[in-house]
């Protein structure tokens, strides 16, 4: 990436990768981030990935789609991806935009994300249907 302040950091913690985005990324930087992350998942055979986007004040259609793509590719490689730290206004903008957030798994913050990765795997919510 371009010299100057670091845009993204990817840290390894046990079987997980923790990626933090520090500043607004343009599309090229976003794509580069996707490639780096996928590459590292493969290299470290990670079981889980947390992407912290708390520093971002906009997640537009391209960024949201990229996050979704990362999640899908990571799954094919055997890793769960959890997006953490989406700001309230940003969350509202994403859904207002009409983005399908389909396969995105999300958690409030880093701590919560780690709890999820350590916990039981996700099951489809069957309880709502049953209770009705």
């Amino acid at each position, binding site marked *: 990436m*371009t*010299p*100057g*302040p670091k845009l993204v950091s990817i840290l390894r913690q046990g079987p997980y990768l923790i990626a933090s985005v520090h*500043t*607004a*990324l*343009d*599309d*090229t*930087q976003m794509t580069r981030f996707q490639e780096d992350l996928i590459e590292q998942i493969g290299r470290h055979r990670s079981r889980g990935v947390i992407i912290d986007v708390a520093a971002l*004040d*906009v*997640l*537009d*259609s*391209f960024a949201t*789609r990229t996050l979704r793509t990362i999640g899908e590719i990571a799954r094919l490689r055997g890793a769960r991806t959890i997006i953490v730290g989406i*700001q*309230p*206004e*940003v969350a*509202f*903008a994403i859904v*207002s*935009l*009409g*983005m399908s957030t389909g396969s995105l798994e999300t958690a409030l913050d880093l701590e919560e994300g780690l709890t999820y990765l350590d916990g039981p795997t996700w099951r489809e919510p069957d309880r709502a249907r049953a209770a009705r």
Partner: protein
Amino acid sequence: MRSGNEPDSPAQPDITSLIPLVRRVVGARVHEATVAEDLVQETLTRVLATAPRVEPGLLESYAIVTARNVVSSLWREQDRHRRNQHRVVDLRPPDPPDTDLLASEEQGAVTRALAQLSERERHLLLAHEVNGRDTRSLAGEQGSTAGAVAAQLNRIRARLRVEYLLALDNAEPPTDRCRPVLLALSGGDRRRQREVDAGRHLLECELCARLSSPLLERGRQGRDDEVCIPIHSDGDIVAARQAARELAARLGFSRTDLTLIATAVSEVARNIVRFAEAGEVVVELLERPRPGVRVVARDTGPGIADVEQAMRDGYSTYHGLGLGLPGARRLMDEFAVASELGRGTTVTMTKWRRR
């Protein structure tokens, strides 16, 4: 003003209260009633036009120095007329060489003004204005953000305008308060104007009084309630949405609305990069019919053959993206697309501030 036919004068109730003041200033110098009244009107028109750029406390002082400027320009005019009366036969405007002289004088003034800037400021300004580097790449070079670079550029331009006028006037400011005052006027920075008590200084300093008019009455270019971001590359998308957020924040939009606006700008700016390669995004604050922000995204690309289809969800002509226009529309209050094949596309969208 006095006809009272404009019921929307309440936005500037202070202007009406300036009338007697301006009358007195003009009346003390010009005794012919009709001429005086014309000058009063001209003064008020000028003051009215600059009212949004000056802090309210400055208005009275500014009205006084403007009235004074208006009167003295009348005198200069009369003087020139008197001097030229002997050549009634030849009423052509005086010698063309003057124009050349004027141009070279201006050239010199610009050079001298540039010399007043620091090496770094000069480099930044020239890189942006002359070499066409975008704020994003300049930010990368400086280890800063595009928004910060844009703000820095605005400050440098404000300074350059001041130095240019000083050079053109061949004047060295008589007091050390002059430059701060002129800078606050040039940047349209109302808080700073109050801090340096610009109103008082204008009344005391002849030089600043004279320079205040060109600084405050410059046209749309450089208006502080409008930004224009050229769009060529990915980086400009980020710069455009940051600039839009910064500008809209001044109107007091909620955080949620600011985010919706920034996201919408991001979408339309990306459309330019993907479809047209080059274009611009202009963000403008609106006062009427109520406070709001308008975004105009223009490009000179191939145009959209079927706008209606492009507005439909799921429509996509490039890989993986179809949400641009319909998505942006959902985020804003008003949205319009005009497109002509082979000429380009213009998207205009507005968001109003809620009470």
